[in-house]
């Protein structure tokens, strides 16, 4: 890798002036599990690296505030490691998130990688990661995955010049749970629904997220607002080629409220992961489940709706039925069904 000047600010305020208003010359470093690979492959060649590892306080903590009649409001600092999310007792009401964190890569990566890194990492397309290939995201004229080796690429491809899949496994459960992102820049603080923090990039000055180059993700907050008297159901289900240390081929994360008595599902949110350039909310699938009692049949109907818009590439049609199964299983798991498929 190229050499660089290394900065280790002690606070977010100290870090902000080190950033620039354009991408390329500065990279943020947290766990390093994405950045070091990019540096070694010369996919990223920054002159400065700003390490966030010395920043203490809320940036590195999980905190919970009880809410009357609701699951707790939990704020997770962007610097919190994946292992600590997976094992957090404060996050126990959110198994969609903790089980997803526990399944990311292997233990060493979970000991190093952070929430912020999971959400802000670059995509894993092998054309993007190949130093010698000038794809769209590196200023080239074409996306090589469209006609090339695309078995791990997007199946929701409509209107996307670049057909990466978004690499975060934490984004789908967080979006399903209605999480918000807290972001800081020299212009002040802002907060936005997490699903608005992602975009489908198609050129070098765009990343997979919508943060400006001089912004830092501070934390993500989960604060469900359920209809009175209901209880929260949530789960994440993913399919991988290997049991562990692998990227999901497809992922489905679901969250909904269950009415007492009638057992009907309300406020359904279903998010698809690793199938599109962004984590993908599926209002079609949610609509099918809204107001219904979760059964094998209603879960299957919602799953069928989730794949309606899929337009797979030449080599990844297999992902479509796989995604359908993942959505159905995530819904059943959330509703408390015992898995009978493994």
């Amino acid at each position, binding site marked *: 890798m190229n050499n660089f*000047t290394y900065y280790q600010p*002690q606070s977010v305020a*100290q870090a902000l002036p080190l950033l620039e208003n354009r991408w390329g010359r500065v990279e943020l*470093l947290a766990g*390093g599990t994405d950045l*070091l690979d990019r540096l070694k492959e010369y996919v990223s060649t920054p002159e400065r*690296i700003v390490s966030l590892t010395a920043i203490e306080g809320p940036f590195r903590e999980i905190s919970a505030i009880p809410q009357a009649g609701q699951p707790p409001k939990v704020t997770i600092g962007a610097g919190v490691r994946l292992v600590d999310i997976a094992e957090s007792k404060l996050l126990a009401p959110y198994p969609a998130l903790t089980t997803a964190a526990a399944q990311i890569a292997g*233990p060493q*990566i979970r000991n190093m990688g952070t929430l912020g890194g999971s959400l802000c990492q670059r995509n894993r397309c092998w054309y993007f990661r190949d130093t010698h290939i000038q794809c769209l995201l590196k200023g080239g004229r074409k996306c090589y995955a469209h006609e090339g080796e695309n078995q791990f690429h997007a199946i929701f491809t409509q209107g996307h010049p670049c057909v990466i899949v978004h690499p975060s496994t934490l984004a789908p459960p967080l979006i399903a749970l209605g999480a918000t992102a807290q972001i800081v820049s020299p212009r002040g603080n802002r907060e936005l629904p997490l699903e608005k923090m992602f975009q489908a990039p198609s050129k070098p000055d765009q990343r997979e997220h919508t943060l400006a180059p001089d912004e830092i993700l501070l934390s993500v907050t989960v604060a469900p607002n359920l209809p009175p008297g209901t209880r929260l159901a949530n789960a994440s289900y993913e399919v991988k080629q290997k049991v562990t*240390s692998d990227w999901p081929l497809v992922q489905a994360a679901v969250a909904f409220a269950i009415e007492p008595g009638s057992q009907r599902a309300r406020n359904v949110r279903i998010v698809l992961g690793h199938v599109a350039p962004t984590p993908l909310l599926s209002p079609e699938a949610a609509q099918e489940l809204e107001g219904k009692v979760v059964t094998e049949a209603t879960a299957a109907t919602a799953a069928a709706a989730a794949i309606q818009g899929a337009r797979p590439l030449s080599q990844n049609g297999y992902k479509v039925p796989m995604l359908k199964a993942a959505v159905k299983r995530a819904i059943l798991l959330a509703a408390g069904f015992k898995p009978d498929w493994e």
Partner: protein
Amino acid sequence: MSQPKQTGRDGITRRGFLTGSGLAAATVGTLSSTAPAALDPSSAATPIAFGPAPVRLAFTVNGRPVQVQVEPRVTLLDALRNYLDVTGCKRVCDRGTCGACTVQVDGRAVYACTLLAIEARGKDIRTAENLAQGDTLDAVPAAFVRCDAQQCGFCTPGFVMALRAALDKNPRATVAELEQAVAGNICRCGTYEQMRQAIAQLVRKEG
């Protein structure tokens, strides 16, 4: 890896960085009231910029305080192997995948190839060398020896460090938990069955 021209500075102070980098003071001035407080003058003595010239780093390796002078781009793995002659951690994939470089940093198992040495300043590093005192082996490598749980042995230091970290975290870890603990390590010889026997012995011993 080429060495850039020495500047004679191991690290520059925050003040030196702010003066030298041409950073617009206006950037700091535009911090709005909702942003965190501007730079804390009391921290002015804390250097926050290092390199690109080699930087002197101090950390502890297997209980021994060490110093090493390396560029910011040098990984902990390369600092240990090439500068400190601590060669138990192996360089195989160098991409955070195979696990041969696994070391403990402040007790956590990490890939030394994926951590910059400069990020390990002040930390407690443990490598496979730490699992022997003279001729006495730690329980984990001892179980590997008893079960013949290696063939070429190149991956072994990583496996035993991953298992040691898991047992340090939870001495009563189950077989399933220990198998998960080595899920980030690969053995190309395929001695997994013997490793499973070693894990079974470790669970009986420590459980």
